[in-house]
């Protein structure tokens, strides 16, 4: 019988890498994202536009990894996000997402976690970086 051990958030000290995940930006995943948010890249150049991935789709992939690795409990809120886009990614690109704990504090029964985001392409060129702030119920 498998035993699930709950993640001990207090042990996630600043500097701890919690995610190092590779994704391929396949058409199906990106299209799902575009369908959900109802937006797209404007067709300045139809061919070019079709292959570009909305940067927020990549951010949401990163967040997916963080949610999974942190076993985010119900009641968690995403309260802030900073992002800096360095270069556009294209359908078919392989990206590397990392997440590192920057801050982890508890105040008034709420855990505040600041997680650094870095996304690079398969030749280690930066695509985006930033940080997200999550509050988790204690």
């Amino acid at each position, binding site marked *: 019988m498998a035993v699930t051990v709950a993640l001990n958030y207090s042990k996630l000290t600043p500097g701890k890498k919690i995610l190092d995940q590779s994704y391929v930006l396949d058409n199906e995943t990106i299209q799902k994202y575009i369908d959900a948010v109802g937006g797209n890249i404007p067709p300045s150049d139809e061919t070019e536009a079709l292959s570009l991935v909305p940067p927020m789709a990549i951010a*949401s992939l990163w967040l997916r990894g963080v949610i*999974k690795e942190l076993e985010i409990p119900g009641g968690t809120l995403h309260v802030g996000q*900073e992002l800096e886009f360095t270069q556009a990614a294209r359908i078919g690109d392989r990206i590397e997402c990392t997440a590192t704990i920057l801050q982890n504090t508890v105040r008034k029964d709420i855990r505040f976690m600041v997680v650094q985001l870095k996304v690079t392409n398969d030749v280690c060129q930066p695509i985006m970086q930033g940080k997200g702030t999550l509050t988790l119920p204690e």
Partner: protein
Amino acid sequence: MIASLEMIKGEYLPTIEKVVTQLMINQYAEASGDFNPIHVNEEYAKKSRFGSTIAHGMMIAASISELMTMIFKQAWLNGGRLKIRFRAPVFPGDTITTVGQILNINLLNDKKVINCSVEVRRQTNEVAISGEVTVMLNEKEECVETFVSGESVTIVLTVKANNAINNPTIGILIRDRLGNDIFGTNNYLMEYSSGFFNKGETKEVCYTMPLNLGVDIYSLTVALHTDATHIGESYDWVNSILVFNVIPSTQHFFSGYCRMEPYFSVKSLSENNLLQENKQHVMH
């Protein structure tokens, strides 16, 4: 065709409005892998402090990036910065409006740095997301194909003379999507000289003007000839060298093709109403 130099501090950006549905939230959960019950489990969410499911913050934030992509295109994708706070939940059925305003435009080395405030508001005017974005544009400006009605634009034509020619007429013509001429002019009609072109010489010719056009798709045609029209001696003529969009501005929506910007006034012509009219003037 270039834009943006004329972007000014305080100017409002165009807006994006959309209705958020539970279906979209469920689709976003699928796409992002975020199945937090506060987003997708109505029974769970009813017992929460929100009393209902709420949309993912990043799903709503996507409309900010969508707006920035629409305006700044590659400059946003290759160098945009976003700093936001999720301030209030967005519920299924809400209509959200994404708005922005230019806070500052600064020059940094060869780049123009544009700072904008952004907000996503619910239909109640409650701010769901607020924050700032920064975009860096090359000082040489961005070649774009989508413009806000009324925005100042510059059409830049590069003209190379294969033979020496004196004062050629260099013209532009904007047509609507049906091919009707909307506006055309040239330096002959404007009584400007384009000067003497030596054999092999290249010159840059610019037309700068407010793009006072209605929302639609247009094409740009350019021509090089003598005198007022190309009927005399025509050197070059390129139809639809650029197809571009005009999108609504945040101020004074109008119908039709031309932004005429009339002055509006009202006065009563009835004697009984003179007193009332005077009062109204005082109020103004």
